[in-house]
């Protein structure tokens, strides 16, 4: 049987998931290190997965939970590619700082 507190807890979990998405986007916009920007992207995708997982669990929808898994796979691809770009950029330019890279480009 569902109580009011269960619904409120599920809503709190959705709010926290959205907060992770927003904070991830904030990290991508605010920070200067490519690696931290990549971490922000992973955090945003993790927040999306959390939100979908909570909503899918609350509605008994297995497909929504499966889509949350898909978000995790996309986060893995994003992290691998982003870390490789950061390492490659550091080896070629000696920095992975976005502002300094922009100055180097002219």
């Amino acid at each position, binding site marked *: 049987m569902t109580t009011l507190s269960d619904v409120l807890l599920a809503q709190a979990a959705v709010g*926290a998931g959205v907060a992770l998405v927003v904070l991830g986007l904030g990290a991508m916009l605010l920070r200067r290190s490519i690696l931290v920007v990549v971490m*922000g992207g992973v955090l945003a995708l993790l927040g999306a997965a*959390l939100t979908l997982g*909570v909503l899918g669990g*609350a509605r008994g929808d*297995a497909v929504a939970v*499966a889509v949350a898994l898909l978000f995790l796979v996309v986060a893995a691809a994003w992290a691998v*590619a982003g870390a490789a770009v950061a*390492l490659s950029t550091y080896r070629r330019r000696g920095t992975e700082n976005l502002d300094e890279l922009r100055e180097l480009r002219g």
Partner: protein
Amino acid sequence: MAPWLLLASLALAVVGALALIAFESPSRSAGGLATAVVGSAGALAALDVGLLPGLILWCGGALALFLLASVVLVNVDAEERGQRRMRLKPALLIPVLCMLWAALANELMGAVPAHLAAPPTSAEVTRAVVEDLTLPFALAVVAVATAFITAVALVRRRT
């Protein structure tokens, strides 16, 4: 549902996310990401959602450790220390982020039904992956493989 576990996990996830932005050192930011991963997995485990908590813990934890290893390889800790680490003024961005959170959370919290259904089991989620989302998962796996191959090619390339 275990309310204390859920609330503690959610608090852990949000604190980890805040740490990712606020800490000066990228290695501490990676620690914040790992904390957020553990908090998210704990929250989903408290809600009894099948399959997802374990996969978030393993895959997300592996990603956080992988990014931490990248930070150690690049040694950006020493480089970033003492420099201006924010690209925009936080005072400018924080109100925008708060408004974005309010807009999104308002819509999505309303999507929670008044009577919660039984959460899907691991078998149901696996069946949905195999039967309903075959093509998206196949494409996502191809994307991961492509990312790995590109990563190896980029890192092995000489200058």
